[in-house]
């Protein structure tokens, strides 16, 4: 696959692309490969889930694709832009203008109310949000009567919906969601997944979601399975059972607890 690495993607149906993406921690003999020459295309207008056991590199993959982390080798493109090699300032601007983020927890700025959190990336950029679109997002996500609330006054599900609205409102090329349902009960989790699903189906939004919950992965169009820093499998039109079955293979018949679970740490520290 590495032969294709140098070829830049054209503005076809690919939102993000990685070629030979390698991420190593440490150096020399003690180096640990978090990502081992990964080639991946994230197709535009699709809901892609990334799964894998702890330490498989799924969060690292997301961080590298989103310009949050530097790569050790390989190339990453967002749309037609190669982001590997971009300067810190350009990366920041890219994240601000072209990518939306949802994290597992601590998604919102506690000093800002819901409305201010939603428009934050645009405010930072000094842009005026498109009023009609903003209203539509707010109404779609049912946040109209919560706009003046501070995050502390919102439930976990409401908080994630605000984060979702923030990701949607700037109409980014790509939304990265890192365990967005990890801290929610199953009903709230389903609600958030439903919103992401709808964003893809009705608005043509591209979403990449890291999860270890087969139920959440089942909402996606495509599941990529990572193990030991490589993409080892992919599953179109997944179902929860099929995903669970596939995951079982990784750990020798001992899959992670299925279903939306609370109390699992975020993916970051596990993998680093």
């Amino acid at each position, binding site marked *: 696959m590495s032969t294709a690495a140098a070829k830049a993607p054209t503005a076809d149906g690919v939102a993000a692309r990685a070629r030979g993406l390698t991420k190593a921690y440490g150096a020399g003999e003690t180096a640990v490969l978090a990502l081992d020459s990964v080639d991946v295309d994230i197709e535009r207008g699709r809901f892609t889930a990334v799964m894998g056991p702890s330490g498989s590199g799924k969060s690292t993959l997301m*961080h590298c694709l*989103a310009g*949050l*982390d530097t790569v050790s080798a390989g190339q990453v493109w967002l749309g037609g832009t190669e982001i590997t090699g971009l300067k*810190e*300032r350009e990366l*920041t*601007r890219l*994240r*601000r*203008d072209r990518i939306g*983020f949802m*994290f597992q927890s*601590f*998604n*919102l*700025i*506690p*000093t*800002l109310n819901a409305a*201010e959190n939603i*428009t*934050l*990336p645009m*405010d*930072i*950029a*000094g842009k005026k949000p498109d009023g009609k679109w903003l209203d539509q997002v707010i109404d779609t996500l049912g946040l109209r009567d919560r706009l003046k609330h501070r995050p502390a006054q919102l439930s976990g599900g409401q908080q994630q919906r605000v984060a979702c609205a*923030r990701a949607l409102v700037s109409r980014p090329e790509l939304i990265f969601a890192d365990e967005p349902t990890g801290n929610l009960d199953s009903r709230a989790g389903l609600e958030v997944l439903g919103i992401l699903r709808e964003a893809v189906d009705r608005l043509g939004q591209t979403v990449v979601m890291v999860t270890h919950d087969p139920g959440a992965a089942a909402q996606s169009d495509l599941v990529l399975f990572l193990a030991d820093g490589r993409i080892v499998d992919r599953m179109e039109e997944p179902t929860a059972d099929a995903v669970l079955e596939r995951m079982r293979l990784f750990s020798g018949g001992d899959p992670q607890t299925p279903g939306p679970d609370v109390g699992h*740490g*975020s993916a*970051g*520290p596990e993998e*680093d």
Partner: protein
Amino acid sequence: MLRATLRSFLAHKGRLMLSALAIVLSVAFVAGSLIFSDTVTRTFDRLFASTSADVTVEPKQDLKSSVPTGAVQTVPAALAGEVAKVDGVAGTHADVSVQNIVVVDSHDKSVGSTTGAPTIATDWYLTHRSPVKLTSGHTPRGAGQALLDADTAGKKHVRIGDTLTVQAQPGTFRVEIVGIATFTTTNPGAALVFLDPAVAAKELLGSAGRATSISVDAAQGVTDAQLKTRIGAAIGTGTYDLKTAGEQAKSSAADLGGFLDVIKYVMLGFAGIATMVGVFLIVNTFSMLIAQRTRELGLLRALGADRRQVRRSVLTEAVLLGLVGSTLGLGAGVGLAFGLIKLMTAFGMNLKATEMVIGWGTPVAAYAVGVGVTFVAAYLPARRAATVSPMAALADAEIAGVGKPLRTRAVVGGVVGVLGVAALAGCAAATRTAAAASLLGLGVVLTLIATVVAGPLLVRPVIRVLGAAFPALFGSVGRMSQRNALRNPRRTGATAAALMVGLALVGGMSVASASMSKSFDQQIDKTLGADFVVQNGNFQPFTQEITDKVRGTEGVGLVVRQRFAPVAVRLPDGKRVTTTAAGYDPQVDEVAHVAYKGGDTAAALAAGSLGMDVTFAQDHKVRLGSVLPVEFQGGKRARMKVGALTDQDGGSGFGAQGGLFFGIATVQKYVPDGQDSSLYVNRAPGTGADQLRSRLEKTLAPYPQVQVRDQADYKKLVHDQIAVLLYLVYALLGLAIVIAVLGVVNTLALSVVERTREIGLLRAIGLARRQLRRMIRLESVVIAVFGAVLGLALGLVWGVCTQQVLALQGMKALAVPWGTVVAVVIGSAVVGIVAALLPALRASRMNVLAAIAHE
């Protein structure tokens, strides 16, 4: 538990560093001032003890004047012979030593000290007690020869063979420097000129038969005290003061002590400010450390540590911090004392840094201050730590103290504040200076406490207003920085309080000094009618020669002399008041506008009469026409009639208590060898002001000690004198700001750590580093400006009340230096920016991923 405490202390040493720095600063000032004053005291005690004669006979010092008269009190030189006959006297010497001289070089520049130390002319009489020895040249022989001390010679580039002009009271004479005398002991800073003993009395006192004192050597086996008693019996103690070597040394040290006390109090003032501001810093640091360690403390509690143990653990940490800070501070204090000693050397006072004295009191005071302050400051946070529940270990706890209502603070702050305001209101309404001043002091302390206590309550309303424009100006970044400042009102309040204390002080002092300047200006406008005033910069009197030369200058119309005389008056209410009276030439109305309640200038200046301030007169039941017994120096007495009562704004503001004045003839009669202190000069008709000024300046060129001033110059002189006070205040402010900046840095640094995840999130969704830095900078600015606004508001109120007290002293004008106020607010914003530099840099360097993953 102790091990856990030690571990925690070491783990947090970075965060404790700024607190330690505050302790180091305050301890350094305490230790430095103690070491310095001990060293100076020891040095001079030694000097005076070694240079004092066994017994000294001096003219009676019955009235000490705060204003120099220029007169030298003398004893007959023949007294030396008389004393020599007393049993037990081994030898006597008639000393001649005067300070009412000015020595100038061939360029008409004074060779004396420019820092206020005296120029002394004395006879060259070497004994084993002499502080100097001849190091080059030869002893002065006859008139026209002199020695100069080596320090002065070195500083003013005088060499053997140079000619100096000595302006002495009997007349000016020129001397050739024939030798250089070097101090074998510490030079207190004076410039010394030595003359041949054969001519010294004639040249300096005008008569060979006079002396300024008699030094007596005791014979073997006779104690100083015995000898003093015997001499007293022989010559009487009514006209002479007799002092043993010990007494003489003590009184010399006391004369010098005033100056040293000033340095000591200034240093202690610095220490006080440093300590006060440091307390806020320490309270804040410990509060924040405890907030961050809520879980850890909860775990300790869950594992079975009781409240007392938790509290003790925090306090032990504080004591450790205090010990470290005190030790470093003690070291810094030695350095500071060393610097001060070097500084004194620059002023001409040759202290030896190698002979630094560190008394046992210094380390005791250093550790008492350092550890005590830290302990007290950490006490409240420690109590709060002890209230952390074991549940905190499990829960994703709310940070301790944030959500707690500020009710107690509101109540305490409110009550103390009301009392303080009442005291200040009482001060403004008071009619007696003493009462007003004590109410002012009380009000200042109470309002300060109230503002500090209630500070966190003011955070929300004030910062809402201060930061109101932020969202509009800086968008989300501005909004977040404003809200971050509002996030923890206690923390913001305590951080700003450090700045507030310093700025309140400055605000108050600048209002007071601006009001003083304005009052003096108005007074000068109202009372000074002369075209020019000829005066010494330090109000030192000058020789007759200058008066004669001024009178002889072409274009001078009228010269009115002013002289001072120390007096004591016995008043009808039974009080004896010692003060300084002024004497004027009769034409005083032409150079000054004096308002009279009764009588007039002629009546006040007539022979046997005096004038007096009407308020002072009323206070002491004096009426127009009252006859008062007045004592002058040297035991002279007179009965004088009150010829006039003056009603001047600030009658006692300029002069001495009581505003006593009489004709210059009276001064000449009772203080025969006095000198003029000021000359009020009017133009002759047909002479322009500039013309006369340049002529006067030309006339006075050989007399560098006096200056010609018109009204504007005179105002400037007064302003400059008030400004000295202000410079001191600004220096205090500087220190307070340094520590306050440390406090802001501290708060921001810890806040940044606390908000790691939030910062990571912001960076992830696209906040640029530059924007992040701006956000922290703006938060810092808003905290600093909050402190400044609070401090200035408090300071302005204090200043206005202080002016009310001054008004009782006749300084009725109120001036608010708005320029300074605006400058301070802008300055505080700059302080905020500076304080944010490091924390902002640190935040912007934070790794985005690590920040997101932060737990």
